């Protein structure tokens, strides 16, 4: 190492001391990175609650978007819209995701399965704006209208690969002994999968769904390009629909200061739900892994 072999370096003690000091400095750097990475998390959570709590009241959950200059108002239309679109997207992406994961773990062999896995991995990194642009260029332009259903399809594009990937991981934890025991009893393969494999991996699949839902709830760009947003309550999936992240995005950029407060209130709702889903998913998957290992 260059730092140990300078010509003036007489005693070994100095160089060892130098190397130890360097090592300690590096350890200091590692701890520093831990602090640097956690500061934003603390600051974001702190400010979201500090700025947003005053906006949280009954009106926030029962009223729709206020007209400019009118005080009060709430986000009920956005909360309902988010629930509707993420709900529809979950109904579409869970069967798709679980079935493709089942193919990969139960049947997939060779280069075809490897290709599917590779494609799923690539899709996992689809920028969310691309999912939005894709559905805008197809569903929205063909239907001649922004709509909740288009929003749900755009979210499905993002959630399907997520569910495929995490379900595949969880299905791999199901011991082969279970499958073989059932097969040896003469149970057909599809029954083995439905009656043994899926129930065993149940908690893990639920975890995968929770993570996908958390992702779907937080997405702004795909919803913007497909569902557009709506100031009023809308329950018709064929019409433009609002969502919480979209409302936050619009309010934060508006010049009306009263709306900024509503944006922070929306951020609390979003943050609490998304973090609860992520933490819940983590606890469930830890428990599941301990059970299966």
């Amino acid at each position, binding site marked *: 190492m260059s730092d140990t072999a300078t010509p003036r370096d007489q005693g070994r003690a100095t160089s060892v001391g130098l190397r130890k000091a360097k090592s300690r400095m590096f350890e200091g750097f590692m701890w520093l990175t831990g602090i640097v990475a956690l500061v934003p998390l603390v600051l974001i959570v702190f400010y979201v609650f500090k700025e947003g709590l005053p906006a949280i009241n009954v009106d926030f959950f029962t009223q729709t978007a206020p007209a400019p200059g009118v005080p009060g108002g709430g986000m009920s239309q956005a909360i309902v819209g988010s629930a509707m679109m993420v709900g529809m997207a979950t109904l579409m992406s869970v069967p798709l995701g679980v079935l493709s994961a089942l193919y990969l773990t139960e049947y997939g062999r060779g280069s075809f399965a490897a290709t599917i896995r590779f494609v*799923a991995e690539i899709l996992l990194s*689809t920028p969310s704006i691309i999912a939005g642009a894709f559905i805008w260029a197809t569903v929205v332009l063909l239907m001649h209208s922004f709509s909740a259903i288009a929003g749900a399809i755009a979210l499905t594009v993002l959630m399907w690969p997520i569910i495929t990937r995490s379900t595949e991981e969880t299905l791999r934890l199901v011991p082969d002994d279970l499958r073989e025991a059932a097969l040896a009893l003469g149970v057909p393969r599809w029954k083995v999968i439905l009656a043994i494999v899926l129930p065993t991996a149940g908690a893990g699949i639920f975890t995968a769904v929770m993570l996908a839902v958390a992702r779907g709830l937080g997405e702004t760009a795909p919803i913007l390009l497909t569902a557009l947003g709506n100031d009023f309550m809308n329950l018709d999936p064929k019409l433009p629909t609002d969502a919480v992240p979209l409302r936050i995005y619009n309010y934060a950029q508006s010049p009306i200061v009263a709306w900024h407060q509503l944006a922070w209130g929306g951020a609390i709702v979003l943050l609490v739900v998304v973090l609860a889903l992520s933490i819940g998913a983590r606890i469930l998957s830890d428990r599941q892994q301990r059970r299966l290992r």
Partner: protein
Amino acid sequence: MSQQSNAPKGETLTEAPVRRRLRIGDAVFRDTTVAVSLGLIGLLGSILFVLLVAALPAFRAFGVWGFITSTSWNGVTDTYGALPFIYGTLMTSTFAIVLALPISVGLALLINEVKSGWIRNPLTVLIDLLAAIPSVVYGLWGIFIMAPFLNTYVEPALGATLGQIPVIGALFQPTPSAGNMFNAGIILAIMIIPIITAVSREVIAIVPRDLREAALAMGATRYETIKIAVLPYARSGIVGATMLGLGRALGETVAVAMLIGNGLGIQASLFAPAYTIPAVIANEFREATSVGLHRSALLALAVILVVISFFLAAVSRVLVGGSVAKTGKPEPLLDPAEGDVQ
């Protein structure tokens, strides 16, 4: 499964229909999963196909190279060029990577080196939570809390110090803009740290114990062990992790759209406003009608973005996958550290 084909000859007549029904059940179920899996390939294919077809008029009118290198983005004259958006996207993402990479690798090493679980586990969980925060919340916090702080304190200070250095000083020339590439790059860095950390942590965790122990047995300090044994082994995986982070940064929409100032100029200073590909798509899709080339030009930008993203994802997957696959076979003990042994 071959059990059907070598079933005993003397099978009774009553058994046969049952068997056939079971076999049909199996075939149907299997084919369903295959069809759905093919759907993934279909999805990828149709994303590329639809965007490409929709972008064709713009590419035809300006030429692919002409579109990429033109700086004009003008709805009145109906001429469109991608360069300002490509520039803004690459500048913010590169800046974000420069900030996030050392922090993420340090963090990944920390999580692997620290032995006490009561620090490591909460640290891992908290970093993962950082990844779960929706990007619009980052944007909201960025625009009202972080950007005013950076604009008032950090940017003037950097302008007065780094801004005086020749060459790299050009990056830190003050401008009056509140929204700029510096703010957008910092929020992106915060957003991609958990991604790069998570993948780096995985590839660092699988560095064989033998390598570490060999280095330690030679009297290497912890820093030297990391430098000669851990990092060389994990290098390609960390590069893959960085590409994953880069892909995420390139595609980030709302947080960047809120912070970057959305300006069409191409300026060297990080303190100048700029525009990114996702941001311009999100801001202009409403006005983009089928009359003229505006819509097609926006979707041509989407094509550029998706090609870069999928390419980065593919390379990253090969690098990280290769790094993980290496552990399957025993490694020659000193091989990765060879260059450093005197």
